[in-house]
């Protein structure tokens, strides 16, 4: 199946987020690799995804799971060779699956040759590629992102006897984007991968590119200029490719990253995600509708990217203190689950392995305006391992079978890059792809089904959204519209059965067709439309006039 | 001559005996009826008395204030009165029945009328009883209301209310009994009118100041009336 050539392919995409290391090991060294991933592309095609987003696979000391890059133009030896990657790209494209890779612009590893040179002396030509200072008092007031591990944004370099700036770990010095050489070099890096055939970049940590005194060093206009420039070059030389922004900001602060359709194509809607979990626990749609009411309009060619979980902690940066406390108490009573203002758990454990809740959350993910991203393993309801430090608890090997190493690798179990989940509930004997393929009503089959329904219409990816506000605050209901097509989505956020009356006056005369079973429901008349819903149930209705 | 007298006498005696013999059975029947009637009336009285005691009739009439009236008139309790009344009426009824058996023409009619009269008598007694109840209740209500509103001469008011109701009830009773209807009507009219006139005068004279103050308060704002308790009881 060839790639669809639509320039706006990302609006219809279903993205699957995966780390090569975690997926499938082909050479028995206990670490997943590109050939292994290539072998599993059929599975992904069967699932229905149209794009995979690969976590960083560059050479790296791996002190930040690969986001500390030591060489931009190669791949880490553990995952294979550059040739393996090319083969993977081609195989994916054959199956109609696009490939999105990471590009960390803001910083490098301190093991990167550039930094090694820069720190060697104050006169080195690459000195200016990073941000140096004699004191650690510059850019005061800038917030620290990794609160649990870092105390300052400045680190002392004993070799060159000065401080260098790092917004993340101290072993990830920030590149200096005021230096045109840096900017040119990074475009060259991107070009390298684009020419190979990569379809899109997820640009990591974009708000922090530029620093200025007297500001909070985030979202500065200079940063936007640089990004617009990158986009321009991209459109010129590689039309049809996509840039996805990782910017954990309030919607109003995110809006500039779309520019006028001349900056990023897509951005993650970070504030929505914790509110979906909050709305579920509160059994109240208010957090969800409010954040979407506050979400600004974006240019027609742009798209939000929605997700439930990812490789990081469930971030609670973009909520109020009261909301954060609530989320902590509800979802992470065990304090070890809390990290950096977030919760480091997978989807299924967060939802107490409740199948109905998992379905509801995925239902909302697939029906709210934006492109959904599925984190690997969540489609079979994988669990997490808190005892693995930092955020590694949600990055355990993919569970394929109930057998040796769960089918992930032929190696000695002690050589796996991370131990498999063994718990009685989430352990690989219980939760694996093989078992779920055998079981008709497994979560995997359900996910395949909902992806199929989602892809059957463009209205979810491209349509507008209009919220209905039924008096029953436990029901989240909205209409998605695109040209002549209208879909009504009704979600019951409550753990108990509910009755709701919807005001569908404007749609009088329409027959409702439920989209999973294609059965007809009563026609809309003069009276409010009454629906009764089971716990955590949701409906997708196509509105049809005969 | 002597034979004529004897034969007349004999004839007369014979007639008398015949007449006597004719009436004797009936007389006996009458006496039997009277006796039976006494027995039945007595039984009814006893039963009624028990029933009335059971429903605490005495208490009810005490509530109505009827008992007080009775005690004042040195009459026995309400239960007793009702029981005895029923006894006498029942017995009288039976006696009337016995008399009617005698077949004395003129009496028949009277007896029939007596029996026709009975229901109306009961109704009248009924109205009277509840009338006294009502009079008592409303007069007491008026008394309490007047006292609590600090209206002058509350007892006069209460008595007036009682009188009006009693007079009204009495006139209905008399009308029901069919005794001197017209007279009663007129008498009631006069009495009622007199009472009302009396009240008007009493209130007019006595309440003159009150009316004055009331009007002042309504139409002339200036004098700040000394407010009573600014206490709130709760």
């Amino acid at each position, binding site marked *: 199946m060839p790639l669809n050539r639509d320039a706006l392919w990302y609006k219809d995409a279903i993205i699957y987020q995966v780390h090569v290391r975690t997926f499938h090991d082909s050479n028995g060294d206990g670490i997943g690799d590109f050939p292994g991933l290539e072998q599993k592309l059929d599975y992904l095609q069967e699932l229905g995804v149209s794009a995979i987003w690969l976590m960083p696979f560059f050479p790296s000391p791996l002190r930040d799971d690969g986001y500390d890059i030591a060489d931009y133009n190669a791949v880490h030896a553990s995952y294979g060779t550059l040739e393996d990657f090319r083969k993977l790209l081609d195989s994916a494209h054959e199956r109609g699956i696009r490939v999105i890779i990471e590009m960390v612009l803001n910083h490098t590893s301190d093991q990167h040759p550039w930094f090694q040179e820069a720190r060697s002396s104050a006169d080195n030509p690459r000195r200016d590629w990073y941000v140096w200072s004699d004191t650690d008092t510059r850019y005061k007031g800038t917030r620290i992102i990794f609160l649990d591990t870092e105390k300052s944004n400045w680190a002392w370099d004993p070799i060159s006897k000065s401080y260098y700036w790092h917004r993340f770990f101290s072993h990830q010095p920030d590149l200096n984007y005021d230096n045109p050489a840096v900017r040119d070099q990074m475009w060259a890096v991107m070009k390298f991968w684009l020419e190979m055939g990569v379809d899109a970049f997820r640009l990591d940590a974009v708000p922090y590119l530029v620093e200025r005194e007297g500001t909070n060093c985030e979202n500065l206009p200079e940063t936007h200029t640089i990004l617009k420039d990158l986009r321009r070059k991209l459109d010129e030389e590689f039309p049809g490719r996509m840039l996805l922004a990782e910017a954990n900001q309030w919607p109003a602060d995110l809006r500039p990253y779309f520019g006028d359709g001349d900056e990023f194509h897509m951005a993650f809607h970070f504030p929505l995600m914790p509110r979906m979990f909050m709305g579920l626990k509160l059994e109240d749609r*208010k957090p969800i509708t409010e954040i979407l009411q506050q979400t600004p309009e974006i240019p027609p060619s742009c798209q939000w990217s929605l997700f439930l979980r990812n490789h990081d902690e469930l971030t609670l940066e973009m909520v109020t203190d009261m909301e954060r406390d609530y989320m902590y108490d509800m979802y992470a009573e065990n304090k070890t689950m809390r990290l950096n203002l977030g919760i480091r758990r997978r989807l299924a454990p967060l939802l107490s392995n409740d199948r109905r809740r998992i379905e509801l959350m995925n239902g909302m993910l697939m029906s709210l305006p934006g492109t959904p991203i599925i984190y690997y393993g969540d489609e079979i309801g994988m669990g997490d391992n808190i005892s693995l430090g930092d955020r590694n608890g949600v990055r355990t090997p993919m569970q394929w079978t109930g057998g040796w190493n769960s089918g992930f690798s032929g190696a000695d179990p002690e050589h796996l890059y991370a131990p498999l989940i063994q718990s009685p509930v989430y352990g690989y004997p219980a939760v694996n792809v093989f078992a779920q393929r055998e079981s008709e009503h497994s979560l995997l089959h359900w996910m395949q089904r909902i992806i199929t329904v989602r892809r059957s219409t463009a209205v979810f990816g491209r349509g507008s959204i209009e919220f209905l506000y039924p008096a029953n605050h436990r029901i989240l209901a909205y209409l998605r519209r695109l040209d002549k097509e209208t879909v009504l989505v009704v979600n019951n956020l*409550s753990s108990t059965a509910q009755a709701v009356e919807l005001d569908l006056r404007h749609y009088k005369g329409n027959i409702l067709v439920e989209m999973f079973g294609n059965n007809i429901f009563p026609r809309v008349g003069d009276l409010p439309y009454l629906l009764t819903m089971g716990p955590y149930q949701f409906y997708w209705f196509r509105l049809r006039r005969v | 001559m002597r034979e004529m007298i004897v034969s007349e006498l004999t004839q007369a005696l014979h007639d008398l005996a015949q007449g006597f013999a004719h009436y004797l059975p009936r007389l006996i029947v009458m006496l039997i009826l009277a006796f039976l009637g006494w027995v039945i009336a007595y039984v009814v009285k006893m039963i009624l008395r028990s029933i009335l005691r059971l429903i605490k009739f005495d208490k009810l009439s*005490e*509530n109505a204030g009827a008992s007080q009236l009775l005690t004042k008139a040195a009459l026995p309790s309400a239960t007793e009165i009702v029981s005895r009344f029923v006894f006498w009426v029942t017995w009288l009824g039976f006696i009337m029945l016995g008399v009617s058996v005698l077949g004395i023409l003129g009496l028949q009619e009277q007896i029939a009328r007596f029996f026709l009269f009975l229901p109306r008598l009961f109704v009248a007694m009924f109205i009277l009883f509840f009338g006294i109840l009502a009079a008592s209740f409303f007069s007491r209500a008026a008394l309490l*209301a007047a006292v609590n509103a600090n209206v002058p001469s509350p007892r006069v008011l209460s008595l007036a209310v009682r009188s009006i109701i009693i007079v009204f009830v009495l006139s209905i009773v008399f009308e029901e009994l069919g005794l001197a209807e017209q007279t009663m009507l007129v008498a009631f009219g006069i009495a009622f009118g007199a009472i009302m006139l009396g009240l008007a005068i009493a209130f007019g004279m006595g309440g003159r100041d009150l009316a004055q103050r009331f009007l002042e308060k309504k139409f002339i704002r200036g004098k700040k009336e000394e407010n009573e308790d*600014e206490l*709130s009881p*709760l």
Partner: protein
Amino acid sequence: MVPGKSRSTELNLEDGNFLTDDFLRQLINVGEVDILVGLPTHNNAKTIGPIVSAIQKEILQTFPRERTVIINADGGSRDGTPELVTGKSIDDIRPTSNLHTLRTLHTISTRYASSPASGTALRTILAAADLLRAKACVVMSPDSQNTESERLSRFLRPIYRDGFDLVTPTYRRPKFDGLLMTNLLYPMIRALYGLRIREAYTAEFGFSNRLGGQFLGQNGWNDRSGGTGAELRLTLAAITGGYRICQSFLGEKEHIERRAADLVPTLRETVGALFSALESEFAVWSTVSGSQPVPTTGSDQELLLDPMRVNRKRLREMFSTGVAELESVFRSILSPATLAELQRIARLGEAEFQYPAELWVRTVYEFAASYQKSVISRDHIIQALAPLFRGRVFTFLIENRNASAGEVEDNIESLCLEFERLKPYLLQMWKSKE
């Protein structure tokens, strides 16, 4: 005391149409709640806005995670009070509020009648609380100008967190305020039921769903009295049902203007309700002796010493007039000795007049016994009490004219002990009927 039996899960409403369809629909949309705040209103447009705002603020501060609803039971307001209340609903339908909340805070309103009746209002609130399974409910007064914070939580915390079933308020009052409470209701309830509840009849109180559900199911809503004195009966139901009761100090009690003419209806609602309750609860209060204090949170109440303008002369006059004019009525109610004594003091001049505590207690008890026997119409008995109460008030005012707050409290305490001491007298009169 027998602990209250668990209430049935079925709702025990006599008339099926007691709640309007529209209100029921609103309740369906609100769903289960943890906290319910009831606001009975009638033409309170001037004060209701700030009160609702204060309630919402307090909920956000102290119970931000709880599901809460504010229910306004309106008795036919014509000044737009219900609209003012519902307009303050915090939800995503009309996002006008600048209060930031975790969840929707519904504010709904229903009209329970076209004229105010506090019993029906309370019943509406109880029914809603039962249907919504609210764990803790508070009824608040719409008259309060005092919107100081913490008012609501002082009722809610004991119920929601400490498991109490009824929370009655205590206030800092002017020393001559609330004399019906201090001279009759408080001592009598204390003596008969054995609990020292200062404010058994109050416009603001809190209760748990256990107590609310059981009280709702009790008969008495369709009495002739039509649910009057429902607040008092709730307190008594809590006592007889063995529920946990506590008091919470609320600060200064506001002065609400009442006219002298309000005394009789007030007596009906309070003393009338109390007397009629005594009959059915005889088995409970007859066995109690002495009295226990009730756990109280917040500072101890003290009395304020503001002097108040009171027309004492009129009180005494109304007493004397009453005793004279109502002699025929009193003869049915009081014992001859008591009546004679009352007539004696009625003839005293203002300087010597004194309605001693013991005589007052006897009076009240004899009234209670007569009420129970229905010697005359019960409503008349209550009305007859009014002038006597005024006489007692006069004496209380004189005795405490120059007293300090502590001394007034001592006097009240000794009156209470008198009530307790003479309780056998009441029992004796009560039983003499049988």
